[in-house]
């Protein structure tokens, strides 16, 4: 936990000092610095297995051309120790109208033992308004893995939004100590129904399904865990 706080503090300090504020006159303000902090998911999952508290969030600061970004996600089964906690510090730059490239480091406090990765990835808005994020990771042990995420907002009304999403994690080699096999490791699929009370604040309910494959599934079975789980979720997404 101490590491985590240090990392956030350090990230913010770097972010704040890396840029100087823009000018105040109308003719020179198109290069101003903006920042936002966003929690996409802060939710409680109930269903197969233990209940889980899960989060996924990000923050960024910068102008149109250069941004520093922070991402985090994790899962904490109730009554057990933290299962997954991941932090990324990234430099972000636009590469096309709709896509950015991200490069930086990722540090996982969990699973145990912790791992540090180099990250390179592309995120942006694909056709049909699909938000995508694809990343390649190289760990300190030399293992290469990848993750692909996609989600889309379907408007039922102006404020009621149905949000399907899918995440696929795969690895190109086995890292036995963190129970990661080679090949597709996990697939997660979610369906959340949000109500945007404000743009910045939306409670939601939904379903979350997760399934482990291959060697990763074997590792789970060895530990006496399920290889798949379907859970109801309730949570809130917010940003400021």
């Amino acid at each position, binding site marked *: 936990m101490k590491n985590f706080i240090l990392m956030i503090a350090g990230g913010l300090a770097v972010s704040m000092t890396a840029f100087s504020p823009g000018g105040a*006159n109308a003719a020179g303000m198109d290069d101003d610095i903006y920042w936002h902090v966003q929690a996409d998911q802060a939710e409680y999952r109930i269903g197969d297995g233990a209940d889980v508290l899960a989060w996924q969030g990000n923050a960024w600061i910068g102008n149109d051309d250069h941004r520093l970004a922070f991402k985090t996600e994790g899962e904490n089964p109730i009554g057990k120790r933290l299962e997954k906690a991941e932090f990324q510090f990234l430099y972000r730059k636009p590469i096309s109208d709709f896509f950015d490239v991200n490069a930086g480091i990722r540090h996982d406090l969990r699973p145990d033992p912790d791992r540090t990765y180099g990250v390179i990835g592309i995120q942006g808005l694909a056709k049909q308004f699909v938000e995508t994020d694809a990343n390649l990771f190289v760990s300190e042990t030399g293992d290469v893995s990848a993750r692909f995420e996609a989600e889309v907002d379907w408007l*039922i*009304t102006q404020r009621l939004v149905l949000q399907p999403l899918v995440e696929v994690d795969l690895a190109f080699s086995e890292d036995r100590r963190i129970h990661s096999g080679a090949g597709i490791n996990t697939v997660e699929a979610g369906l959340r129904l949000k109500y945007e009370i404000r743009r910045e604040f939306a409670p939601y309910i939904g379903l979350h399904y997760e399934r482990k494959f291959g060697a990763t599934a074997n590792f789970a079975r060895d530990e006496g865990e399920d290889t798949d789980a379907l859970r109801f979720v309730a949570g809130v997404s917010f940003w400021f």
Partner: protein
Amino acid sequence: MRRLMLAALAAILLAPATARAGTYDLTIGTAAINVAGKDQTAMTINGSIPGPVLRFKEGEDLVINVTNTLAEDTSIHWHGLILPYQQDGVPGISFPGIKPGETFTYRFPAQQAGTYWYHSHSGMQEAVGMYGALVIEPKAREPFRYDREHVIVLSDWHPDDSPHKILSNLKMSADYYNYQKRTLSTFVDDAGKMGLGAALADRMDWGDMRMLPSDIADVSGYVFLANGRNTEQNWTGLFKPGERVRLRFINAAAMTFFDVRIPGLKMTVVQADGNNVRPVPVDEFRIAVAETYDVIVRPTEDKAYAVLAESMARTGFARATLAPRMGMAGDIPANRPKQYLTMADMGMAHGDMAGMAGMDHGTMGQGATHTMPDGSTMAGTRHEGQGMTHAMPDGTTMKGESHAGHSMPAQPTHTMPDGATMAGMDHSAHGAPASGDKADPFYAPGSGLMPKAAEGGKFLSYADLKAIKPLYPDRPAAREIEVRLTGNMERYVWSINGVKYSDAEPIRLKFGERVRFKFVNETMMTHPMHLHGMWQILDNGSGKYNPAKHTISIAPGKTVEADIEADAEGEWAFHCHLMYHMATGMFRKVVVERETAEAVR
């Protein structure tokens, strides 16, 4: 005594050198305003929104002392005026700006006449109240008559978010303010109307572009104001039945285009952007951000007429009233149905899309969502006292002289029987356009923004504007400069030729040359492009009678050309006048320079 004599001597000596001057003192500060049900802080000029109407006479010197009592820099730009560039008031281009506590004196001769305006060009102060009207009386008689005049400054006030917050929200999520997106229910409606396949194909087309057909105004939630009053506060201008009333409309909004009509009155447009045009009788006109239009109306009945300025995105009205007595109010009708952009506005109306363009998006989803802004129940008496306590920024001057001999254009003052109480009637749903309602060539064929008069009849087009006295002899432009209006809606970055201001080189013009700006709007937004210091002579097919404007609005998917006579040496601003497009980069410096011997070689 000796000092007095010296002073007298000095006065005698200096007298011939001093032209007649109209002098104003303006103080920039803050004041509380209440247009959204609560006191909020605005940045004001002499304590009011709008600032005072500044009146000058053609030929005299304008002397304006601007004192900054804010804690930040400020400036005043004289919108549409021809002047030395150091007096133009753009920090970073014409001068360093006015520091806190400092007084800056603007001084320049009034070389023109007409309706203009002034506003801050610093930060985004204009969006929080720093604007006002500026009127220059002509030396010569005007080619139209009127008995009385009123200035009507239209604007928008955001009750929730500061300009910086608005930009920050747009940078986070460009559709933050769009609550008129297409939803499941509009999809079901569309599928019912055009079939599931066509509805799906239409959604896919927009999805491929990652754009929203409902993106007509980037920012919503505004309260619309007429002379600083909201619809309830109902700014009222007086008339005596039978009088000819000149209305000087100025759009000082940050982001809002208004469609202006006065149910029951024909309006005769006599001036656009300060320059006289051949009179055009219209039922409605669209005033882009930063434009001005002067119209003459002749109310004959002893009743209140509503002056309605409906936002182009159909989210509400600015309402003023013309009345024979204070305390009366014209009615506010329901908003017209939401307009949607079409593929034509995306510049994509190629062959097989013809069917698409014909599809009237404008009538989709009507009836379901438009809210009545509690219009019809607004008894005027209730607001009487309120109206009197505010300082009237407009002096409501009476014009005594009658210009006999100048014939007025035919003004069929057809009065709508009880036109004011037609609230709630969905006129646009009647489908069949009224006679005389033809497509405006300044919009893409099939455009979802194509203007149509609310009550039928004539809607003003740029094509109708013909100069009475051209300011310049007609001659071909020496060269053409392409000005592509570009932007990235998703990132909320706006630009010219794909480059935003801070990354761009200035546009350089040679003193004395005539150049043609070819505006190509590659975005889905309408951009009112404003050039400081020089006129843009809009090519609307009128040849030597092409009208000179300071602001030219270019609709989505359109190419519009205008000539510039580069007769003003110096450094000038050139930008989209939508506040958040200007602030994010749709801006250029234009440098007009004489060729030196060295440069010619």
